[in-house]
């Protein structure tokens, strides 16, 4: 009987723990905070994001063009060598 009572107390404590922990948590904001109230030092300057976006476009396109040019050169050299061997 005593064992059952101890088990019941432990079960109640386990059940109460998440409820009491949830009650201690700070409440999340009910709505989005408007962007103009964010302190200046916490904002990311738009120019950095725009520059990063344009930089990435140029980097990706030029990288791909160079990759195609390199592969094209390799295949053309190989093709020329094979065709000369064939003759």
């Amino acid at each position, binding site marked *: 009987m005593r064992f059952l009572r101890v088990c019941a107390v432990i079960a109640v404590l386990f059940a109460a723990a998440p409820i009491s922990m949830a009650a201690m948590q700070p409440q999340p904001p009910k709505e989005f905070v408007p962007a103009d109230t964010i302190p200046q030092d916490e904002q990311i300057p*738009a120019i950095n994001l*725009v520059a990063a976006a344009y930089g*990435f476009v140029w980097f*990706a396109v030029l990288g*791909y063009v160079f990759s*195609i040019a390199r592969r*094209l050169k390799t295949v053309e050299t190989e*093709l020329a060598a*094979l065709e000369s*061997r064939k003759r």
Partner: protein
Amino acid sequence: MRKLTIPFLAVSAVMLVAAPWIINAAPYESTMGLVQKVFYFHFPSAILFLLASMICGINSVRVLFFRNLRADGWALAAAELGLLFGAITLVTGPLWARKAWGVWWVWDPRLTSSLMLWMIFGAYLLLRKYGGPGSERLGAGMALFGMLNVPFIYYSVNVWRTLHPMTSVVPTLPTDMGRPLWFCFTAFTLLFLALLNLRAGLEHQRVRVEALYLAEDEA
């Protein structure tokens, strides 16, 4: 088409060099300000990402059902360009979103399905590189799934209202913003066509090299 590759590349290069000045002259958007200018590269690359998927899918149908092996070169070229323009879309989008929405990414239907399509292209290219003989037919099947994803991606923003703007934004743009957008779109499209042609030509030459090696082995 082959003759147009170099003129297309040259014209698109000149247009892309001029683009920042033209974009700079466009008016600022009232709520987003400067960061909205990412749109002028984000939108064309997103449309070409979807177009690449369509080209890859249509050529995969030709490979699967009509045994057209030349179409395979076009499908592979379109898949590589899909990966390239998809990467541009998926990088420029979050850079814009960070300022406009306050977050880099949201798991909304448009963004998630775009990422899925980009991953399908990645898987397709890995399969084609390491899959060995027969990978072109397996890849073609995969590309069909990619193509079926396109209408879902396009219309998802109209069906589920999320943070991403709807498809009605572009047709209703004021002329001052529309002009630089269509200028960039033309530049990107010319670049896309030139690269597609170059890459498909490379693949057709590679197939010729393989055929020559095989003929040499048999002789």
